[in-house]
């Protein structure tokens, strides 16, 4: 187990001290079912408030984004600063296909998701081929985000420009149910699906390759892991999640604008959520995204001062818990248990 800061190897934050995962399937399915069940009960609690339900649906969308980003950054160490843009490819793609081209909603979502997947894979392929490091991958993907934003504003007849547009498709269906219950369960289904995919992935041979290349890419390559191939796999899977979540979310929301997927609105937030929950952990995204959604709702009256609170939180978090809440809690728990065992 390495220390909190592993020094020049650069595995700080994403390096792997991780409790060994059990290969038994119940070890994955039970916590997953428990998390799903808890979230499924939320509408009973806040279901009579349309505003809070809207917040909850957005919160689940953020859980999805964070899981997708976790697969890309947490599992394969590629800093993709285009989470919002990839989700936006899904969202705007699905909107344009459904409204302007006239495809059925499900087909639009699938095609748009495919587009996001391919773009994510392409970005990763380029980064891998040119062997860009974490920071350079970040900058190239950031450039993609900025170009995507410029394109959205430029193609204003399709995207509605700055103010966005309303989505006609699905307007009178349950997708737009005023009580937001169906949208909530739809997004929750995506969360469970994504967690299941990520969980199964982690226990497959791909997961082993991910862990190996994340701990030390050179050593993994020498041990016969095709690092390039697995990085692209990670990006494809993560981007597919982002595209699917983005397109599904906007179709339940009924309107879309560039800020829905803006860099400051999505990427920065997702990074903080993931770092809070624990980068590379399976349930970190849920913990991080749900916590931040709740904090955001509590602090809503403070307006801009919320950002001050986030800034302080980010600094405190990375100074004292760079591995995130879950790994820190797990570490403390192991320490406590060891102490107890010693005493006995």
């Amino acid at each position: 187990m390495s220390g909190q800061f592993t020094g020049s190897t650069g595995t700080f934050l994403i390096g792997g001290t991780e409790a060994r995962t059990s290969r038994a399937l119940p070890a994955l399915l039970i916590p997953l079912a428990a998390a799903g069940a808890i979230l499924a009960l939320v509408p009973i609690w806040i279901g009579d408030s349309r505003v809070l339900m809207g917040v909850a649906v957005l919160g689940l969308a953020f859980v999805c984004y964070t899981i997708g980003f976790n697969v890309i950054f947490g599992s394969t160490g590629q800093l993709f600063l285009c989470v919002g843009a990839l989700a936006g490819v899904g969202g705007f793609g699905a909107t344009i296909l459904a409204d302007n081209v006239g495809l059925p909603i499900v087909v639009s979502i699938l095609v748009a998701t495919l587009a996001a997947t391919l773009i994510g894979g392409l970005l990763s392929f380029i980064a891998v081929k040119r062997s860009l490091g974490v920071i350079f991958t970040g900058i190239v993907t950031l450039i993609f985000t900025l170009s995507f934003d410029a394109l959205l504003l430029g193609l204003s007849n399709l995207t509605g420009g700055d103010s966005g547009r309303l989505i006609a498709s699905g307007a009178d269906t349950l997708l737009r149910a005023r009580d937001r219950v169906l949208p909530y369960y739809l997004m929750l289904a995506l969360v469970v699906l994504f967690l299941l995919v990520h969980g199964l992935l982690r226990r497959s041979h791909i997961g082993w390759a991910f862990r190996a290349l994340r701990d030390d890419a050179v050593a993994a390559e020498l041990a016969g892991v095709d690092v390039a191939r697995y990085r692209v796999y990670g990006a494809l899977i993560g981007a597919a999640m982002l595209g699917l979540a983005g397109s599904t979310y906007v179709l339940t929301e009924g309107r879309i604008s560039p800020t829905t997927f803006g860099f400051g609105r999505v990427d920065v937030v997702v990074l903080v959520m993931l770092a809070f929950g624990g980068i590379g952990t399976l349930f970190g995204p849920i913990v991080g995204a749900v916590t931040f959604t709740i904090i955001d709702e509590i602090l809503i009256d403070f307006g801009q001062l919320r950002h001050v609170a986030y800034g302080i939180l980010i600094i405190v978090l990375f100074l004292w818990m760079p591995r995130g809440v879950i790994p820190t809690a797990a570490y403390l728990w192991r320490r406590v248990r060891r102490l107890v065992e010693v005493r006995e």
Partner: protein
Amino acid sequence: MIANILDGIVLGLQFGLLATGLTLIYGLGGVLNLGYGQIAVVSAITVALAMDAGMPVLPAVGLGLLVGGLLGLFLDQTILRPVYRLRGEGRVLLSLLLTLGVSFIVDGFLNWRFPLKALSLHIGGGAVEILGVLMRRGSLVASAITLVTFAGLFVFFRSTSLGRAIRSVIEDEDGARLIGIDPKQMLRLILILSGVLAALVAVTRSMVAPVDTKSGLSITVFALIVTVVGGLGNVVGALLAGIILGIINVIAAKLIGSYISLIILLGAAAVTILIRPAGLLGVKE
């Protein structure tokens, strides 16, 4: 065509100055300061407030530069402390995340306290003709300040022993320590210098377009892109990259239209990074 190139150079000088402060800290300390744009914005707002309070322009600008330098010093003394304990990519990542936190705090505070405040310095007088092209006086003054700054930096890094000491740390931190240079002290100096440069960016930019409380992120992002294209830690590279990207941007804007020109600019930056990951003037390690 000459008009386009001149416009491009004016914009490019802005880009170059933007990147210089960022590239110096990265080159020297391996620290990526995402709060860079916010330093510029705080300085700009300081100048604007000082002028509201009746201070003449020059002392107000001086105060802004001072505030920029002090903010750099403050970062160095506080949140960058733990960053210096790390090395390599870990240092870059931690510095990036902590300064991201700082940028949140600054943005949140400014947008809460001074939501509508913006700095725009109006340089009086009409347009000036240069090589048969009419240029706005504001952009000329901004360019002149930028050129003088670059000349000053150039002389500083070439000819003064302090400048040479700083360059030796950029080249080899351990080697510099062996010959008696304290890298931490150099870093502190560079952080102050980078803060002053950020403030200067805000001042020169405000002669062309207003700098408001929401400009921070875009200043940082463009500075980052120009920095990377020019080669991390390379001041001349930053200037060169700035001018090239500026000319590309203006010509693309004239020939095609504004939003695609931004995409072309970004594409050019991406292609440069992919072809020469070390930057235009960077040396492969």
